[in-house]
């Protein structure tokens, strides 16, 4: 065990014992320390260099139905007693709710014994000049590719390491350690008139070796920005929508948010009562897989200590499981699964984005959203979009300042094709998606 973990463990256990000495037996404690370094380049000079270590202790107290939580970044031993007094007093001030209990210890059993490959030990060898080199290369390459149109380019490089220790008074103990590496490019181009569309692209991974090359990040960044040049608003119409992989995540997000016991219990879910019913086209299969090696959302246990396992969420369009934590599970009489997503995988189709465009013929390719929202209770949504008009399977021109609207229940049944191209830099591995007959509002 590392010294770092030993210290974290000893401090956390002191906190738990302190709460128990004050007469509250049910405690969940999570402590962490993390270190993050980031370097940003502009005009071939570092624009911003940031570096810091951070620590946190959070406690959740369960006292015969009374419940409170407390979080602090102050690890001085002399500050702990007063912090615990606060936590205990706060908990005792609450109205009892019999569903506020620690998770059942049964759920802690059978923790998978697999190596998630979440921690890249080579981070320690990463020298400051390596980060500078990556950020500088992204910026320089992006500027070079964009040529005279470039107004401003940036390259960024960021890495972090975190160590988490979690302990529950009813028999759970776990640690997790992980690294993340991110590189970003951004560029602003001079367009017609005063318009200056920008493009942004990021690559992220648990292992440094899995990061896209700086040159590739730069190329993608420029591609994204160039696809937005000379954008026009087109007329209001109903047409085929192709949501590009990165954009499609937001649409899946609405579905996942509604498939959560918390939303259902709070009557803020259009999926209430839809378990085992069709909520999407038969083509849709969504799986929560916490055990994906190197996955950005991978874990052996969740925040409640529930042992990780693969969970079908939607199978061939039918809602099979919801995200259910202990509290809202008890409220709804549902068996806890896990309170939140790990890695969300959509079953892939076999076509590339180009092939989806060719098949669609005439469509609007939505490359990103601008604002918008949905009403979680009714499923009504309205979202700003930008992208590209597709005619006869070919990109015609950029489109901006448009909206789409409808009901999420209907939209998901209108899905007609699924791509093979998920963006790996996310815990949501969602490919490009094609929907029929979507209402676009424009000029």
């Amino acid at each position, binding site marked *: 065990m590392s010294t770092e973990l030993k210290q974290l463990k000893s401090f956390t256990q002191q906190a738990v014992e302190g709460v128990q000495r004050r007469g509250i037996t049910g405690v969940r404690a999570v402590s962490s320390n993390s270190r993050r370094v980031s370097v940003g380049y502009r005009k071939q*000079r570092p624009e911003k260099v940031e570096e810091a270590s951070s620590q946190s202790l959070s406690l959740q107290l369960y006292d015969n139905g009374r419940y409170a939580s407390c979080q602090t970044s102050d690890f001085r031993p002399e*500050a702990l007693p007063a912090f615990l007094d606060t936590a205990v*007093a*706060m908990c005792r001030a609450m109205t009892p709710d019999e569903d506020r209990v620690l998770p059942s210890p049964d759920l802690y059993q059978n923790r998978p014994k697999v190596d998630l490959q979440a921690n890249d030990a080579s981070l320690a060898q990463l020298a400051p000049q390596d980060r500078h080199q990556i950020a500088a290369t992204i910026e320089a390459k992006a500027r070079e590719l964009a040529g005279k149109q470039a107004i401003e380019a940036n390259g960024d490089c960021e890495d972090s390491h975190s160590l988490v220790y979690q302990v529950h008074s009813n028999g759970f103990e776990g640690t997790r350690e992980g690294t993340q590496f991110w590189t970003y490019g951004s560029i602003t181009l001079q367009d017609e008139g005063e318009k200056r569309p920008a493009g942004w692209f990021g690559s992220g991974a648990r292992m440094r070796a899995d990061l896209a090359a700086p040159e590739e990040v730069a190329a993608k960044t420029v591609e994204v920005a160039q696809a937005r040049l000379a954008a026009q608003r087109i007329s209001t119409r109903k047409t085929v929508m192709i949501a590009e992989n990165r954009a499609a995540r937001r649409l899946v997000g609405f579905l996942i948010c509604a498939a959560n016991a918390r939303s259902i219990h709070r009557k803020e879910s259009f999926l209430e009562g839809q378990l085992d019913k069709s909520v999407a086209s038969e083509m849709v299969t969504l799986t929560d897989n916490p055990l994906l090696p190197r996955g950005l959302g991978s874990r052996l246990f969740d925040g409640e200590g529930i042992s990780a396992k693969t969970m079908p969420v939607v199978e061939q369009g039918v809602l099979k499981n919801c995200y259910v934590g202990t509290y809202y599970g008890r409220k709804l009489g549902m068996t806890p699964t896990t309170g939140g997503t790990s890695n969300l995988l959509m079953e892939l189709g076999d076509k590339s984005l180009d092939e989806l465009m060719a098949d669609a013929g005439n469509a609007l390719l939505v490359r990103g959203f601008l*604002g918008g929202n949905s009403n979680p*209770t009714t499923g009504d949504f309205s979202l700003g979009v930008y992208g590209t008009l597709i005619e006869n399977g070919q990109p015609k021109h950029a489109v901006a300042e*448009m909206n789409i609207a409808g009901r999420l229940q209907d939209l998901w049944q209108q899905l007609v094709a699924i791509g093979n191209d998920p963006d790996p830099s996310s815990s949501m591995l969602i490919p490009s998606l094609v929907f029929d007959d979507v209402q676009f509002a424009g000029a």
Partner: protein
Amino acid sequence: MKIDRREMLRSTAGTLAVAATPLWLPATVADAADKLKTEGNNVMQGYFEENFGVGPELIRKTLSIALQSGGEYAEIFLQHRVRDSIGFEDGRVNDASVNVDLGAGVRVLVGDQTGYAFTEDLSPQALAKAATTAASIARKSPTDRPLEFNRVEIPDLYPRQRVWLDVPAKEKLALASTVGEKILAGDPSMIKANVRVQNEDEVLLVANTAGDWVEDTRPLTRIYATAVAEKDGRRESYLHRISARRGIDYYAGSQLDDFVKHLVARALQQFEATQPPAGAMPVVLAPGTSGILLHEAMGHGFEADFNRKGVSIYSNMMGKKIAADFVTIYDSGTIANERGAISVDDEGTPGKETVLVKDGRLVSYLHDRISSQQLKTEPTGNGRRQSFRYAPIPRMRVTAMAAGPHDPEEIIKSVKRGIYAENFSNGQVMIGAGDYSFYLRSGYLIEDGKLTQPIKDANLIGNGPDTLLDTVMVGNDMELAQDGGTCGKDGQWVPVGVGIPTVKVSSITVGGVNS
């Protein structure tokens, strides 16, 4: 309550966490809350020295280390913030949390280059380490020089009787249960009330190598609640918020009743409402919350970090006429008690009001220290940060449009077919392209100059400079929104406010549905 500062500080040589205890504990330990009590002018001096041993000597030393590699400017930002959050669900107050944040951020500037580091440990060793890290942005010989601090005078914008730390738990719990119970009693169709009450006290200190030294304390309170109603097997919900930099006195009088009344009425109206038709049409913005338009369509584009780099659509428009004569837009940090008010910004510039568009002409951007030096102008007091973990950047405070010449009734009457946009939830903007959007929660169709069918859930999208030119009428009924928002930029979130009179924009694209 007014107490003597010296005495107060002597009595409170406790620790950080003790400051949190009076939230929940009886008077025996409540004296620790005195640490955050103020002298009436809200500006407390010596807080970090008395409680954490960080005084002028240590700060001088830290800033000297920060300049050891040749930085041109260094600054330390100390912050102690205690936030509590209380939840009402299923007819009772059954969850609460407290979050204690304490730390220091050290920033070093070389031109427009920034070195930044923070620490949650305020020991001399930890501060020295943060300063050394931040210093590394520079690669020259030390620029250390003798440093005398001068106290910066700042206004008192948040007068209050009690700090939140001094409010007993039961009073805070009562806010949540009162709102929750009133919602449920508001109409027989109400089936759910989810309420959250959030309060915070913050103490901050900024000291820099220009010799500025400033300390401030800021309160903040917010209630947000969702009401869910069910009628004839149909279900509708509505979310509403109120917020201010106030103490608990904010909720005295009819405030909570008015809040619930508004929320319940809007939730019920949703049953009659439909999504509006899709397409471009005239939009009349109701006074108050619609000010989100200014925040998204103009405010972000006026932030000087974007303009000094030339990446905002407004980058070439300084001094130019961008709207009709009756359009004046300002951003103010000095409207007392507003959610976006700041007596001093997070890099030590006292709170100000900044006119951005005067009689239709763009006259100022929103500056922080870096941009004001680059563009050779005065800082406007817009350098803000989420916490000591972040370097400050230009951010809005309360962004508003001044009252204009038109009668609100006449504005509505002038529209043959369009929408009246009343309540909004969120928005977004693309700085360079200038496209913005904001999400309409409730409003009405306008047909032949009259408000008719209630509408809901539509995103409005447009282009900032186009919308300024399309602003054809401005009412004489300017109103500040009470449901202040939280603005995100570069991963940092800060509280802001907006205000606007009734305004007619001749064309905005409405994300509705056509049957």
